[in-house]
């Protein structure tokens, strides 16, 4: 029943029609990019205005996401620079930690696979194809 529409910028993607609010989607994306080392300590994030305009979302939504990431110690507010990735995130997180972040998404996929009675091997084959297509 959900309508899913995605639009992307260089950094962020938002999906509407999901039960996950847009600000939480943004928080999750920054957390993943930082954990994966694609965003490293000192990297500057696009301004609230830029993200809001590119994604056509309310600027309050973007600043809420940045605010939560700041409280969580992922981002730091730099005078004159805006938001940067915090100093403590100087390298990619260990594999175990990154897997833990991925876990809820995989759990959901596993649950849906079972509901649809799709053979695990078939589902895995599809997943492997997707992973290769994207990387």
């Amino acid at each position, binding site marked *: 029943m959900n309508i899913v529409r995605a639009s992307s910028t260089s950094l962020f993607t938002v999906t*509407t029609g999901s039960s996950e609010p847009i600000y939480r989607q943004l928080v999750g994306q920054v957390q993943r990019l930082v954990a994966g080392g694609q965003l490293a300590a000192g990297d500057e994030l696009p301004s609230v205005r830029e993200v*809001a305009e590119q994604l056509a979302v309310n600027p309050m939504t973007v600043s809420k996401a940045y605010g939560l990431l700041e409280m969580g110690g992922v981002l730091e507010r730099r005078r004159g620079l805006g938001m940067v990735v915090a100093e403590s995130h100087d390298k990619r997180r260990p594999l175990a930690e990154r897997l833990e972040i991925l876990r809820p998404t995989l759990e959901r996929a596993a649950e849906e696979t079972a509901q649809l009675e799709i053979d695990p091997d078939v589902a895995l084959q599809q997943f492997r194809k997707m992973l290769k297509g994207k990387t």
Partner: protein
Amino acid sequence: MMSSTIEMKNVSKRFHHKAVLSGLDWAVPAGHVVGLVGRNGAGKSTLLQCALGLWTADDGSVAILGEDPAALSDAVRAQIGYVPQESDLFEWLTATQMLAYFRTFYPRWNQAKVDALMERWSIPANTAIRLLSGGERQRLSIVRALAHDPSLLVLDEPVASLDPAGRRDFLREIVDRAIEGTTTVVFSTHIFTDLERVAMDIALLKNGRIALSGPLDQLSEKMRRVEGPSAVLAHARWGQELARSATRDAQTMLIVIVDEGSEERLETLARQGVRVHAVGLEDWFIAATQ
């Protein structure tokens, strides 16, 4: 600024004995972007028109930018932009002629903005308006409403005849205003993906009242669909129950807004075969307005 841009108290409006609004309370905070939703025929247009003074309420009080809508001063009138659902443009004029005409009514007129939007939205400037497509008229109507840099923008289903690209352009325009933080925007819509993108607050009109209103993020985070045996759910209560329906096999489905203590109770219920799901806005709307 914490004051309300639109403030309606106990407002009722009847047409031929049919009550459209009955004892409605609604406050729109200054600087917010508010999405007004409700089923077809719920009275969204009537509500917006009462707020603007295009109808007089039978009962209750209405204030818009601090004034009585039936006796607006020129100064306040010049701060309001309105895009009606039905295009009320002058069919025989061209867009350029019509905009020049409206310009004479406003002390402030942002011609640079008008030119930029006409160009960006590809609106034929020198063709009679009656020859424009539905989408072009709607875009022109939006340009007219934005031209005098209103501090309150009221839009009645502004994107109904726009294609997805046109809607995205329109949303960007709203976003630009939200960035400046000086414009209050109220728009009615059926398109939830648009709401999700740009609305800070949502207001649901149902049975002549605002049945639910508040920050969109908070509401969507606390919204749950609860399903389980009717026997278990018969007496279950949460922060706010929006819908309840019995389905097949003595099952009950609820749409609820959970509060502080709810999570714990839901966990207890989960052990008795009750399932709890997060809900997307659109699913919530369908369930809550049935």
